[in-house]
């Protein structure tokens, strides 16, 4: 592939045909040029030139593999017979698509028997004998088929086991199920006294089990940081290389009705997200659900108006800083409450009257912290994944 695109022949019509004819013989170094480059600048051009062709080899490689293995032997003999003829008239093959198959096969012919044809200026790498390749190919195909059979059998057995387990579970929705035990009774009966939250789930996850929720927020934060690290290389390359952000990414969708509708809907969705966050201790919702709504609004604004608009109030760096700040505030508040609780000190944070917006002690600020973390995570992940350019 690399050879062909280096020659500038982009008229290859069906890449999968070419692959199916040549699959067992392509030298791996030629198929995947990025592997042998250093990961800095060099593999830029390979990636973009090759992309058009490589995107299409999407399925059935072992099928191709078998077919190719079948006719590979006589294809190879034909090539050997045609070698002198081709050498004699190698001005004749123009850069048309059908001519590339013999050309590519000629490249694969052992270099000892024929000098490298003109289509391959770089000398073909010495390869293993074809029989070994074909053996490997058949082996992999057989392994894959047996793997699929074993996987299907395992899945069916797992399904049977799980269905039998479901049949033995206690009846759905009954009050005397073993899951309804004294823990949930305690949460429901004493929760409002202990935490001041009307919403028992919020009281549970942000007061009784606040440490667990801190862990969840840190999981989200860590995932964001990891994605930043993983995709940073390609982003930096975009800034140096020839490809920047696309126009749609910079200034949003072209459609005017979509822009108008999103402009109308955006404030309401943002407001609704904020409402869900700050009512987390009173109604269903809380930091996670509200944060997701806010993040979706930010994503919507990025989608409609592009990066030029959203970078005024939300960037990847800014979101990371907000996340760190929210996590630190969360840790500080919970450290205080754990300290006072463990030492029997009266906390200065009042629980308030249950049902009012300024009640439930620390749950209100903790919900805001969690909402900030979640919304920043959503927006950061979206903008990282859209920044990543394929072509």
């Amino acid at each position: 592939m690399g050879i062909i695109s280096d020659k500038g022949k982009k008229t290859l019509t069906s890449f999968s045909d070419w692959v199916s004819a040549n699959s067992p013989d392509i030298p791996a170094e030629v198929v995947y040029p990025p592997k042998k480059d250093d990961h800095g600048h060099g593999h830029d051009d390979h990636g973009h030139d090759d992309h058009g062709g490589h995107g299409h080899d999407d399925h059935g490689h072992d099928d191709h593999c078998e077919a190719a293995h079948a006719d590979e032997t006589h294809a190879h003999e034909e090539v050997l017979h045609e070698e002198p003829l081709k050498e004699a008239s190698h001005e004749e093959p123009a850069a048309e698509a059908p001519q590339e198959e013999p050309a590519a096969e000629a490249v694969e012919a052992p270099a000892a028997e024929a000098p490298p044809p003109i289509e391959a200026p770089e000398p073909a790498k010495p390869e293993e004998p074809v029989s070994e390749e074909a053996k490997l190919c058949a082996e992999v195909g057989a392994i894959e088929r047996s793997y699929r059979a074993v996987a299907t059998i395992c899945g069916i057995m797992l399904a049977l086991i799980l269905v039998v387990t479901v049949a033995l579970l206690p009846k759905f929705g009954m009050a005397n199920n073993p899951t309804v035990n004294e823990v949930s009774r305690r949460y429901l009966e004493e929760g409002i006294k202990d935490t001041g939250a009307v919403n028992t789930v919020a009281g549970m996850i942000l007061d009784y089990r606040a440490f667990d929720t801190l862990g969840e927020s840190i999981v989200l934060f860590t995932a964001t940081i990891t994605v930043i690290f993983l995709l940073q290389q390609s982003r930096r390359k975009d800034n140096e290389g020839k490809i920047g952000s696309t126009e749609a990414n910079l200034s949003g969708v072209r459609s005017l009705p979509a822009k108008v509708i999103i402009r109308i809907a955006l404030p309401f969705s943002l407001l609704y997200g904020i409402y869900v966050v700050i009512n987390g201790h009173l109604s269903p919702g809380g930091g996670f659900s509200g944060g997701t709504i806010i993040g979706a609004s930010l994503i919507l604004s990025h989608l409609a108006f592009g990066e030029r608009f959203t970078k005024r109030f939300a960037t990847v760096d800014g979101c990371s800083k907000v996340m760190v700040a929210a996590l630190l505030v969360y840790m500080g508040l919970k450290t205080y409450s754990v300290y006072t609780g463990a030492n029997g000190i009266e906390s200065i944070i009042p629980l308030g009257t249950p049902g009012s917006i300024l009640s439930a002690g620390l749950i209100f600020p903790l919900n805001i912290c969690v909402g900030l973390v979640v919304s920043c995570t959503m927006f950061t992940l979206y903008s990282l994944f859209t920044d990543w350019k394929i072509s």
Partner: protein
Amino acid sequence: MGNLFSNYYELASMLLFVVGFLILLIQRNLIKKIIGLNIMDTSVFLFLAAKGYIAGRMSPIIRDGVTDASRYINPIPSGLVLTGIVVAVSTTAFALALALRWYQQYNSLEVDWTTLKHLLKGEK
């Protein structure tokens, strides 16, 4: 058959789990594998939500100051679902980023013969 058909939520979640598991095992496209992982996640959420439900009771939000536990459903599985969703989002984002790097390296999202061959021969 026991409670097989009265436990239809659990049954559906188990079947979804197996579907996701088979997609994860059999599909060769990395994005499809990630979709299978997400189907498995969703089945677990469905199972937990079904475990928390009690017929005829209200959501666990204290109304009118009545703290009688026999009026509300079990709040614990709801919190566990929340944890599960967060972890599912994080692992999905991480897996997608890894899939993009895979694509960058091999120009393909497939885990198949060509990539395998490349992995086998790549280190020489």
